[in-house]
Structures are given as C-alpha cells and as structure tokens.
C-alpha cells in the first residue's frame, strides 16, 4: 500500500458543483487502477488515468492556474473537465471553433471561430461574457500573454494610476431587462450580470494582451481580450533584410498564420505563417521555392514600453464601451416598451373617427371630447365609442398598459440610463486628463482634441437625458389624468358611482386633447431622424451660456436623445480609433526566417503541421530585473519531402536576438530524425527548455498501434549555429546537425503508449501534466514531473 501513489487533489478547482457520487467513485476507481499500473512498470511518466471519451477532440488546452482541461470537439462543442475527469460544463456556441486559449489568470477561456469572432467564456459556468468580431476569416491561433510581475520596475510603482471610478460611484449599471416577461429565470440572469461585473473588474488586475491570428494573415491585439489596440496585416508589412551591406525589401503574399506567440515581457512576437515571399524591389526574382513556411519576428516593444499608459487607457475605454452598450440597450428598450403601449392606445382610440364618419358627423374626435368635457352634449358616436367599443374594461386595460410602460420607462431612466451616462462622462473626463499628459499618452495615440469633443458630446447627452425624463414625466402624468377622466365619463354614462375614480384636472385634459391625442413626444425623442424646432428664446439662452463656457455646439437641442447618442458613439469611435491606428503603426517586422518550402498543393495542410513556440527566460540575465531578456524556441515538424527530408523535427532557438543584433549571430538549432517506423503526431515545448514529442507507429509498419511519448531536454542536445544566408539561399535548415532519436536511449524520458495517437497534445507547464488522445477515442492524462514537490512549488508559485 505504501507504493500507492499520491492522488493529486484537484487544485483550486473553484467551480462549486460537487461531483455526483457515482461519477466521483468511478473516477477514483479508474485512477487508482491506472496509476498503480503505471507505478509498477517504472516508466517515466505516471499515467493518471485512461478514459474513453465519446467525442473526437480537435483542440485541447490546460488552464494555466487550475487543473482544468478545456477541449473542443470536432462538432465544436466545448467541454471543461477537471483533473479527475469530472466534467464541469459543456457548451455548444453554434459556431465552428478553430482555436482556443486561456486567459493568463485562468478565469476566461477564449475561443476563435471560423467566421472571425473571439468568444470569451467564463470558466465558472461556461457563460459567454463577450463576443468580439475582430477578424473576417477563421481565427487560426490565439495567444494570451500577461505582463510578468518580475518585469515590474520601481518606475512602474511610481506611475501607478488609480481608477477613481470605483471610489466615487456605486457599481456600474447593467443592461436593462424586460421586467415580468422572464421572471422565471431571473436568478440565472442575475448570475450572469454578476459574472460580467466580476469580469470587468477582474480584468483590471494585470496587464495582458490577447493576440489573434487569422487565415488571411491578420493579427489583432486586444488588451484584456476586450479592448482592441492594434491590427497588423502581414501581407502588407514590409520586411527589410540586411545582407552584406545591402538592404532588400520583401513582402509576404497569401499569408496564413499558423502560430503566434508573444513573449512574456510583451517585447517581441514570433509567428509562423505560410505564404509566398516576394522581393518588392525586384518582382521577377520570386520563384516556386518562395512559397513556404516562414518565421517572422515582430517588434512589439510599444506594448512593453507603454504598458502603463495602455493599461490605463484600455481600462477606462473598455468600461466606457460597456456602458455605451448599456445606454444603447436602455434606449431601444424604452422605445420598444413605449411603442407597444402607444400601439394599444391608438388601436383602441382609432375606432372613434370611423364611428364619427359612420354617424355622418364632420367633427374630429378632439372636438367631441372637448364638448364632453364642457358638458354641452355627448354625441351618439362618442357615446357608442365610450360605452360599447371601448368600455370600462378596455379603458382599464389601456390605463394599466400605459402605467406599466411608464413604470418601465422610469426604471430604465433612473436605474440604467442616467447612471450609465454619468459614469461615462466621469470616465471620459479622466481620459481627457490623461490625454493632456502629452509626453506620455501621445505616443499611444490618445488625442486631446478628440477627447475634448467626446466630453462635450457626453455633456449634451446628459442634457438630453434630463430633457427626456422631464418630457416623459409630463406625458405620463397627462395620460394618467386623461384616462381617469375618460373612466369617470364612462361611469357617468353608465350611471355608475364615480367615487372610486380619482379626481382629475380638466385643464390638463384639454392640454392632452390638444397636444397628445395624435402626437407622441416620447417617441419623437427616441427616434434618430427627428429634428426639433426651437424658439428664439431658447436659442438665446443657449448662446448666452456659451459666454459662460457652455456647449459651443448650440444646435444640440435640435437633436433627439437617440440622435445625440449616435453622435456620441461616432465621436467615441473616432477617438478610440486613434490609439488603435497609432499602436498598429508602431509594430514592425524585425526579421524573417524562411523555414521550409511547401508545394502549393499541400500549402493548405501545412497550417496543421505541428509546431510550437515558447519563450524561456535567460538564466544569466535575471540579475537585471528591469529588462530581462528571453530566448525564443521554435519547434516544428518538417513535412515529409520538403527540403528533401523525411521524418524530421527541427528545433531552433534565439531567432529574435539574431534579428535584433546582427553582429552576434546566435541563431542555432538542430534537426531530429525520428525512427522510420514512427511519425510525429504532435509536439510541444515544455518548461525548462524541454520538448515533448508524440510519436505514433505508422500503419504500414509492425509498430502500428504502438505509440511513444518522448520528452527531451534540449540543453543536452547539441545546438549548432547556422548562418542566415538569406536571401542568397532561402532555406538552409539542412545545414543543421541531424540527430537520430532513439527510443530506448536515456537522453530523454520515453514512455510507450499502447494506443495509436492523434492530435492534439495538451501539456501544461504550470501544472506538469499532459493529456493525449488516442485515435480510438481515449484520453490519457500523464504526470510529466515525477518530482511531486517540485511541482507543488511550481503550483504555489503560480498562485
């Protein structure tokens, strides 16, 4: 029993749902069985369990913070499993999912879809928090990088910036919901609201950037995954290559990005893409060979150099955008509610004019009501209308509908619209303050003039909201007054007692008849295409206020509330586009390394060639905390036939540094030859410069159905430097030293797996586990680090 391996307790699995007893028991049983057999065999990786799963898994990714595994099935369902294989939730977003990644804090899973959406889902319950359309085509790869706390400097603390909003305001309003209609599931909706709130507040913790790369060569950057800050089209990025004193410009065509990785200091981005390399100086030079897979190094130092500024701006701007959505929803909901009520009212009261004509009378309904009010006489048509076609019940129904619509209007204005506009204006004021610090914020494109304009517009919006609430209060009161008067009249006509009806003001009835019976001032304010007339006195008053520092745009009272809002939106868009374009223009291509050519026929499949990029911190540079450097490792499988190589995997390191400092050519790598009877299914870089390879026996050989998982310490292998003779010779990976991989040697850890394997391979550096999938629909979870203590340290470090 002492041999019994410790079962890893699920760490920090915050989801609250307890496993059903049966499930838990089963899982435990399986685990025991599997792990004891693993321990007995003495092989390097402990098999935690081997479970059948009823889906074909397309993508899988471990949560960086918790022992959770997110998987995407072939039919684009998303599953979240715990380490003990208990399933937490399943969602089917209804779109084809092409990529997946976790937020650095492990609270959000980001999904890239085939039609260019990024969906952000909550880890707790799988609810969608955001859906952002940043691309036009399928998103192939996602990478969410967080600024490392180690790179914090003293200077940063000094420039720490407090978001004052939480201090000065109660929690921000959320989208209004239609009350009463879905009262059954209000609990769920409340939860969702809380989640969104938690999301927006949690996203303010540490600076992080989500990179998304699509099939057409576009890369988008968004801070916290929600605020778009840059977009690069690789097809249009000029690539300058310095060789033997001559500068040549190149460009890539028909780019499809297959992998992006942003270094953890946010300083550099390495991407793998396929495309055709053309010389922009001399177009004739391009040949067939120029179509291939290339490795690009982009300089994203703007993110690291200006991360405080970007953080502050995006924090404010993303909250503003949230609130703008709240305002939009409020306006549309008010408009809907009110028009429903008005439709009922007009539908009922439109019977009167036709009755009048039926009775051969030429007067309007206004006249008829007026004569009823002054007690001259009640025409038969009006009598018929009030008593039979409208009736007491119908009248009460109208009154109730209008009252409830009015209540909704009031609630939306006071609970959602007004607070949202108030907080927007405060946040804009803060942003304007930041924009004034030109030396810091002009570099990232925060423009003072544009921010001034937006602040002005939001002020007008506040005036419009106030005007709307006043008009609404008046109109609602008049309706209330009129309807009770009509009710009283009906009761009198029916000779019923009227003491239950509240007393009414007959002057207000006249006002109603004259100005509200066939007009709808509330609706006018909620429509965008209305222009209001305003008189000379008001014009003078507004112009007068200009001298006192009022709004310089004195025409704003002509607009309706909805129009004013759309103007605010426009100017907001313009103001936020500025940082977007400014930052985008500061991301440059630093270097290019053609990896291997592909023939155009298999260009499509090349995107699925296994590859992995990782950045490791340089051990010797840690003494300088302010700017540590990191080394990039690129590991990929060379497709059979390309470069005349078969069954090779290449590992390259120090590509970025070789681009930036040309005098010390440090670019090095090696090739790994995989035994002929196996093929590499997937590979991944793992912590401490290791490579994990999945090898599966070829179906033709006798090893079919046997597979291996291999972990190699790259430092034990000999990296050989190779020169970048580009552009004289595009591809020179062959120069690298080729090593034979032997499955029984001990320069790495090797474990055989009794299944034919398929993609994907999911390894988690922070948790020290790997999950592999067999083509027979089995999932196998291995513990990569035997040293449990070390792993625990790692785990606690991540906490």
């Amino acid at each position: 029993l002492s041999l019994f391996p410790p079962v890893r307790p699920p760490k920090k699995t915050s989801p609250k749902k307890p496993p059903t007893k049966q499930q838990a028991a089963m899982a435990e049983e399986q685990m025991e069985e599997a792990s004891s057999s693993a321990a007995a065999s003495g092989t390097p990786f402990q098999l935690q369990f081997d479970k059948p799963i009823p889906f074909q898994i397309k993508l899988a990714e471990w949560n960086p913070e918790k022992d959770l595994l997110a998987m995407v099935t072939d039919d684009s369902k998303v599953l979240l499993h715990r380490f003990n294989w208990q399933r937490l939730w399943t969602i089917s977003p209804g779109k084809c999912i092409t990529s997946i990644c976790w937020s650095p804090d492990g609270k959000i899973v980001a999904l890239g879809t085939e039609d260019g959406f990024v969906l952000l889902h909550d880890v707790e319950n799988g609810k969608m928090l955001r859906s952002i359309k940043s691309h036009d085509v399928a998103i192939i790869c996602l990478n969410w990088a967080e600024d490392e706390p180690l790179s914090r400097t003293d200077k940063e603390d000094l420039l720490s910036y407090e978001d004052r909003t939480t201090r000065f305001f109660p929690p921000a309003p959320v989208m209004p919901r239609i009350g009463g209609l879905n009262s059954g599931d209000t609990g769920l909706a409340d939860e969702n609201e809380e989640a969104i709130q938690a999301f927006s507040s949690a996203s303010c913790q540490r600076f992080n950037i989500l990179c998304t790369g699509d099939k057409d060569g576009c890369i988008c950057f968004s801070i916290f995954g929600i605020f778009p800050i840059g977009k690069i089209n690789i097809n249009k990025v000029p690539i300058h290559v310095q060789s033997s004193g001559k500068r040549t410009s190149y460009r890539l065509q028909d780019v499809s990005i297959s992998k992006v990785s942003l270094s953890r200091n946010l300083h550099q981005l390495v991407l793998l893409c396929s495309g055709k390399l053309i010389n922009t100086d001399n177009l004739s030079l391009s040949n067939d060979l120029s179509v291939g897979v290339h490795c690009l190094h982009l300089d994203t130092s703007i993110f690291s150099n200006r991360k405080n500024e970007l953080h502050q701006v995006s924090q404010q701007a993303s909250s503003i955008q949230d609130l703008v959505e709240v305002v939009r929803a409020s306006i549309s909901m008010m408009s809907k509610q009110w028009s429903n009520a008005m439709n009922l009212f007009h539908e009922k009261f439109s019977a009167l004019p036709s009755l009048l004509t039926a009775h051969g009378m030429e007067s309007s309904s206004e006249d008829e009501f007026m004569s009823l009010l002054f007690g001259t006489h009640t025409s038969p048509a009006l009598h018929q209308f009030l008593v039979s076609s409208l009736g007491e019940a119908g009248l009460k129904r109208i009154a109730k509908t209008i009252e409830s619509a009015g209540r909704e209007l009031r609630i939306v204005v006071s609970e959602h619209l007004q607070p949202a506009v108030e907080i927007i204006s405060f946040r804009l004021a803060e942003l304007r303050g930041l924009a004034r610090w030109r030396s810091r914020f002009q570099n990232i494109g925060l423009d003072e003039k544009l921010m001034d304009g937006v602040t002005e517009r939001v002020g007008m919006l506040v005036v419009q909201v106030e005007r709307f609430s006043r008009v609404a209060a008046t109109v609602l009161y008049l309706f209330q007054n009129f309807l009770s008067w009509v009710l009283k009249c009906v009761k009198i006509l029916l000779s019923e007692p009227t003491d239950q009806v509240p007393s009414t003001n007959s002057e207000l009835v006249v006002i109603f008849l004259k100005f509200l019976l066939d007009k709808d001032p509330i609706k006018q304010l909620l429509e965008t295409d209305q222009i209001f007339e305003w008189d000379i006195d008001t014009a003078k008053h507004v112009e007068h206020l200009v001298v006192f520092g009022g709004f310089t745009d004195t025409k704003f009272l002509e607009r309706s509330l909805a129009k004013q809002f759309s103007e605010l939106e426009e100017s907001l868009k313009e103001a936020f586009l500025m940082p977007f374009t400014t930052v985008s223009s500061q991301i440059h291509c630093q270097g290019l390394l053609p990896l291997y050519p592909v023939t155009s026929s298999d260009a499509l499949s090349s995107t699925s060639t296994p590859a992995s990029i990782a950045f490791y911190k340089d051990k010797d540079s840690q003494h300088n905390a302010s700017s540590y450097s990191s080394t990039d490792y690129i590991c990929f499988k060379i497709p059979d036939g390309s470069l005349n190589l078969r069954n090779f995997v290449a590992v390259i390191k120090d590509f970025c540094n070789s681009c930036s400092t040309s005098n010390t050519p440090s670019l090095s790598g090696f090739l790994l030859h995989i035994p002929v009877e196996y093929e590499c299914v997937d590979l991944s870089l793992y912590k401490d410069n290791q490579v994990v390879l999945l090898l599966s026996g070829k179906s033709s050989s006798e090893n079919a159905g046997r597979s291996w998982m291999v972990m190699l310490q790259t430092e034990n292998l000999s990296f050989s430097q190779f020169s970048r003779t580009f552009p004289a010779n595009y591809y020179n990976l062959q120069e690298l030293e080729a090593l034979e991989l032997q499955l029984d040697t001990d320069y790495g850890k090797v474990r055989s797996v009794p299944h034919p394997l398929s993609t994907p391979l999911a390894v988690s550096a922070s948790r020290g586990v790997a999950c592999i999938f067999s083509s027979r629909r089995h999932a196998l979870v291995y513990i990569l680090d035997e040293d449990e203590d070390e792993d625990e340290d790692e785990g606690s470090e991540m906490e």
Partner: protein
Amino acid sequence: MTFEGVCHLLANLVAYCNSADASYDLAEDEDFNGEIEMSDPMDADIGVRSGVFDRYTQGYATESHMGESSSSLIHAPISLHNFDEADIFKAEDNPTCLRSRWQLEAYLNQQADVLEKDPSSVPLNSFNNTMTQLQTLAPELHRVQFLQYLNALCHDDYVASLDHLHRYFDYSAGMQGLFSRSLSPHQDNIVGKYESALLCLGNLHCYFGHPKKALEAFTEAVRVSQMNNDDSCLAYILGAISNLLSKIGISSTVGLIGSRYSLGNNIGLGTPLSIQQQLLVLLKRSLKRADMLKLTSLLSFDHISLAKFDLKHVQRPLVSFGPNGSTKLRTCPADVCKNLRLSSHVLSDFGTDGLSIANDNGSFSTSWLRNLSDASSSWHSSSTKPRKLITNDFDNFHFHAQPSPIPTSVLQLAGSAYLMRATAWEHYGSAPMVRMNTLVYATCFADAASSSELSLAYVKLIEQLAVFKGYSAAFCALKLAEEKFPSSTNSQIHLLKMQLLHERALHRGHLRIAQQICDEFGVLSSSVSGVDIELKTEASLRRARTLLAAKQFSQAAAVANSLFTTCYKYNMQVENASVLLLLAEIHRKSDNAVLGLPYALASQSFCKSFNLDLLEASATLTLAELWLALGSNHAKRALSLVYQSLPMILGHGGLELRARSQIVLAKCHLTDPEFSGI
C-alpha cells in the same frame, strides 16, 4: 361648444385676471447700472471683448424677473416655503364663487412663484398695497396674509413678516391645513394647524439667523405634532431642524439641543462630535418618515441634505462594539452619489402614486391660456405651410411648450441635485464634471430655478472660466451675469467678483488692490447680523494669502494658524486641509522647507480621508517643491511625487496649477545631476 368658443371664454377670463396685475409689471424697476467701486480694473478687460459682449446683451436687455441673491447652497428654506405654498393654495370647492375665487387663487399662486423666483422684482410696498386691497375685497382669502408674510420675508423685514405670519394663522384658524398629502386623506385639518404655524415660525427665525428661537419653535412644533399624531408635519419639522443644524455651524448649538429638545436617550452627552451624529440621526429619521409617508419632495430634500452631510463628514457607525467595529475614517463618495441619484427620483417618480390633488389649484388657468394664443396661431400657420421641423409640445426648451403639470418645487429639487453634484465634484476634483453638471442645471432647469440657485450655477460656471480660460473671459462673463442678476441684491455674484479681483490682483502682483479687497472681505465677514462662518474663513484665508504675497511671512503664518484653530474648533475638516497647505506654502516661501514638510504631509492625509483629490494633488506638488528645496539629492523623490500628481493636475487643475506643475517638473530635471535630457 366648440374649442374656439372655449378659448374665447377663457381668454376673457385671463384678460380679467391680467388687468389686475398689470400694474406690477410696470412697477418693476429694471434699470440697474450699479456701478461698484471695483469696476474700473474690470472694465479694461471687458473693452477688449465688447464685441462678443454686445451680441449677447441685446437679447437680455428686456429680460425681466431676474436678480436676487442668497448664499445658501441648497437653499432649503426657500424650497420648504415652496412646499408650503403649493399646499396652501389648494383649491377649496366653494360653489358660491368658484370661478373668481379660483382665478384669484391662481393669481396669488403666480405671485408666490414670482416672489420665490426673484423677490427683487417685487417691490415691497406696492405689492403690499395690492394685497391689502385684495384683502378688503375678499376678506375670507387668508392666503393674502401668507403672501404678505412671504413678501416681507423676502425683503428682510423681520417685524412685518412675523406680524403677517401671526395674522395668517390667527385669521385662518385651522381652516386651511398645510399638508394635504398625508397618509390619511380624510384627516381633519384643524388638528394640523398649530404645528404648521410653529414650523413656519421656525423657518422665519432660521431665515433671520436666530437659531435659538428657531429651535424653540421647532421643538414646540415637534411636541405638538407628536401629540396630534401629525406624522407628515413631523417629517417636515425634522427636515427643517436638520437644515438649521447644518446651516448655523455645528458648534454653536452644543448646549441648545441637548437641553431643549431630546431626540433620544443618548443626546446631549456632550462632545462636539455627537452634534454631527445628531444631525445624521435627524436626517435619517426625517428620511425614514418621508419615505413612509410618501412625501416625495421631502424625501428628495433629505437625500440632498444627506449627500451634503456625506460630502464633508465621515459617517461613523452610530453603534460600534468591540474591536471589529469598522473604523474607516474616510468619507464615502459613493454614498453621496447614491443619495443624489435617489433625490433625482423626485422628478421621474412624479405622479406614480396617483394624481396629486395639490395640482388642481388653478395655476394653469393663467399660464396655459397665455400660451394658447401662440400655440393656436402657430397651429394655423402650420396648416398653411408644410413644416419639416417637429414641434415637441412638452419639450421644456420650446417656447410653445405647454405648461407642465409638474410643480416648480419638484423641478427645483431635481435641479438642485445637479447643482449639488457640481459642488461634490468641486471637492472631489473633476473639472469636466463640475462644468457639465452646472451646464445641465443652467440649461434644463433655468425655467424653474429660483434666481439664487441659478446665480449660483452661473457663479460656478464663471469660476470654471477663471480657472481654465483666464481672467478676461471670466470677467466678460461676470459682466453678463451681473446684468442678468442685479448685483444690488445678489451677494453671491458680488462675492464672486471680489474673489476674482483678488485672485487676479495676487496673480499680477497688485498688492495694494489685493489688500483693499481683503479689507472689504473683512468688513463683510465681521457683520454682526449673520454669523456666516464660511465667509469668515474665506476672509482670513485671503488675508493670509495677501500677506504671503507681500512676503510678510510671520504675519501670514499667524493668520493661518488662528484660522486653523477656528476651523478645528468648528470641525471644518475640509477647510483644514487647505489651511494646512497654505501653511506649508508659507514655510516654503520663507525658505524653511523642513518646517513646511509636516504641514504638507498633514494636508495630504486630510485630503486623502476626505477624498479631495485635486487638493491632494496640489499638496503632493507642494511636497515635491519642498523636497526640491532641500537639495538636489532629493530630486528623484521630488520627481516621483510630481509624476504622482500629474494625472490629476493635468486633468482637472486650472491653468495656474498646471503651469506650476510643469515648472516643478522642469526644476526636478534640472537639479537632477543624473538627468541627461535626452
């Protein structure tokens, strides 16, 4: 009867009514060219901008009904009077003389509105004459007395107002109650008489600055209304008392409340702090009652008062036991925001609890008829020519807009929430928010606002102009404002003018003028009639600053120190922060940086706990200057301090502060030996 027929009939009625008040319109004295001795240096600036100025003058030359002043921020007594008026003029259904009486009451109501809006437009004596005339014609109309009381009050005639008030309540003798919207509508009004009279009396004393007498009246009112179970009156009285407490300086009432009026068992236990607690208790009780009785106006007023309290005071838990009792010694701005939002509900919630009877007081019989002729003429014209523009008849910005059923008192309360917001942001430091909220007030509530509140809004706008656009723009606007609000009565505008002139004199180094204005401030503040503690602090603050500018450091420090003790005594923590900053500044200027440091730090921590962000930023800047004065080896620390304060200062600080911060920044770089400049 056709519509036109009705119009005709009603138009005749209004003609009758108008003939009565035509004399007042003519009697109004529009002509004011109050030349104040200070206007000379000001005019020099105005001359430059006369072009702009003229453009805006024309439209306002004929503007009437403007000009009055009062310095209270929220202006609670006026608001309270307003509730009274609205309720007092409740129509009585007297079938014998329904029409004429109704019209008359409408007229009285209108006059009350005018009085409330700007008393200076109503001359005391001619108004009184008309009222007396009316009274002889209709002796049963006791409201005339009340109107006379209001008139006397507005013209600061203590004896007359007291007299009329007494007469009103003696004559009406319980026939007309003040509070119609109590929970039980059939409650007989006779019971509610005496306490209402006492409430009015209390307000009267409060207005004339006799806190002791006011409190006596209120205490009696509380006793009577408790005896008569008049809950709504009690709620109003509580509101009035809390208003009194917050108005007349906390410390002067220590003995008063404890001895006379016992709110509970724990009152009167002694320490000055407990007075603040009492204020809080009172406000909360009034709020609770108003909420229970659905007195929406009072509810809104209480919310505003609570916001005002929260703005400047740390809310301590009333009961705190053990070590876990929260001891967060900071103000809570989110509470202020919440209260202000709740107080704005008075407008949006208007009419939710049924039709209010108080509206049927005939107030429309005059106003809507006035507009009807315009409306119908435009109606006819619209039928002849097709119009593209849309007329929103209920838009308050539209001249033809129909009179709103919402009483002005409700609008005023909704408006003062915005004004209060602007004040709150002045404290918390967000210049765009101050400007925006004030503008919203000036744009949306100008029609309903009383002139004192409106002038306060303009004062705020002009202050913003002075700070952000420079003095010439501010003086240009000030000139316009003075025309809008006759300065003879408007102390607020007058004060602002003095402030601006003083600031500019200091800024330009005209010490003689600065000293002159300081003396004037001293005269204003030393008046025995009203003990306005805020004016007193401002006067001595300005004196200290003038002395500082004249480089008389020891005297300046002495003035500032005595000011600090005063503020401390009256528990004016917010003012303390700025006084401390001034002391730090004095020490810095007198080359005594080491002494200045503790003051600057103290000011900073005061600001932190009261959330005075902008003041904190400028304290940080002063701190940086002090460090810099200590030698070049502190340049790094100073630089980091400047960087800390820059976002606040650049975003919300005025031109002068911004310029100062840039200079300090440059100095930091220059003194830093390691700074290369590239």
